[in-house]
């Protein structure tokens, strides 16, 4: 579904990605961990097609891509519901279904009662959930998530994570999740990559519980430098 071959990209003369290669198959759920500035967001933008690589090849076989941006990017002049409805208007022909479906996704994100609030009237965590609802609303084949739970408290993040896993499994969505939160990444992902100065490296997930207990966290933390 997604294939990177020797992809390199630089900004202002500074190499951000250097000959990165990996492949993500359809319906896989992948986490990419890495310290900030390592190029995680750049990988998502290359997949989304808003960036082109300087060299190498990016192949994405998908028409519908949902993207939960790190900075959410809701339209401040539209209500929460209208923000979700906007992407639906672009993707489905039947206008009468737009509102109903937008409400459905917002309810799933526990946002009932906040449909007519403007983004600035909502808390950071709520805005983040609206952004997730928007990404899910188009029923994406590929879902890109950039630190999607950074503004949520742990209990809510756990709950949404579980819900999200069910939704993604139901729709068989290919997911790329970028984060520096190891626990969250491990609970969503089937595969785990770590992006560092040395490049992109896959860590096999054998037994999640064991990995956490064996202090993989500390090992990863030393790699990530956090």
């Amino acid at each position: 579904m997604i294939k990177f071959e020797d992809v390199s990209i630089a900004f202002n003369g500074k190499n951000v990605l250097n000959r990165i290669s990996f492949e993500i198959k359809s319906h896989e759920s992948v986490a990419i961990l890495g310290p900030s500035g390592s190029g995680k967001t750049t990988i998502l933008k290359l997949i989304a097609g808003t960036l082109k690589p300087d060299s190498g090849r990016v192949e994405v076989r998908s028409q519908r891509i949902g993207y939960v941006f790190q900075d959410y990017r809701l339209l401040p002049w539209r209500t929460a519901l209208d923000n979700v409805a906007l992407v639906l208007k672009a993707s489905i022909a039947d206008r009468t279904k737009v509102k109903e479906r937008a409400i459905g996704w917002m309810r799933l994100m526990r946002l009932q009662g906040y449909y007519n609030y403007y983004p600035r009237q909502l808390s950071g965590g709520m805005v983040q959930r609206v952004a997730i609802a928007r990404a899910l609303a188009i029923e994406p084949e590929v879902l890109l998530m950039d630190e999607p739970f950074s503004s949520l408290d742990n209990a809510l993040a756990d709950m949404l994570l579980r819900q999200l896993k069910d939704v993604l499994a139901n729709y068989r969505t290919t997911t790329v999740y970028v984060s520096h939160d190891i626990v969250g990444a491990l609970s969503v992902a089937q595969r785990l990559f770590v992006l560092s100065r040395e490049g992109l490296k896959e860590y096999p997930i054998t037994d999640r519980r064991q990995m956490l207990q064996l202090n993989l966290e500390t090992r990863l933390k030393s790699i990530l430098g956090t």
Partner: protein
Amino acid sequence: MGSTLNPDAVRQKIQSWYRSRGFYITLSIITMLLVWQVLSMLFSRVIIASPQDTFVALGNLLLKGELWTQFGHSLGRLFIGLGAGSVLGIIMGILAGMNYQLRFFLEPMRWTIVTVPVIILAVLAMLWFGIGSLPVLFLVGLITTPIVYVNTLEGMLAIDSRVLEMARVYKIPSHLKIREIYLPGIGSSIMAGLTNASGIGVRALILAEFMGGRNGIGQSFFKAWSFLDTPALFAWILTAFALMGLVEFGILRPTRDYLMRWKKT
């Protein structure tokens, strides 16, 4: 003594009034009226009509219905001229904001129109369109288009590129992008442009009516001037203020408040 009024509360009330906007606006209007009164006492009635004579003349014009008729003519022309100029300016501003080649192409034209003195454009308008409504509409439209255009363009260029990236990822089609992102995003810039354009538009309107109109506030002003009817002349000046006030406070500000309601909590 024995008053139920608390002196502290009274002082506080006076102080808050003293600090408020209304106080200074009232003070400014009273000052202008006083200066006007003093000047009218210093100079002959033909040169400066006193506030009293002016308000009497205004009352007469109101009673005769003359004021409403001419006010209506001017208001209608302002709407059509400013409306056409604004629509044209907004459309070109949006297109130029999305296409930099068009922006460079339009820039010399904008510069030319803005740089030529209004009086020259007014003379040309009369030369081309004769006397009546047409040269007035042409001038108002021509003057206001580049002002609205520049403000719209500035708003377009200030739109958050991250929001546009979001629109690209979600494949939002152009017509939705214009309606949902560009128009609301440039709303405050357009309103600033319209406020600016309506001020300049009213001046151009009065000038054009003065020179080549068959009626309207500008033409009535011309007639009062020809007959040396100074109180009426001053009354028409006040009418021009009323026209401007109606457009700004009656239409533009409420529209801006409505469009910008998402900024309020």
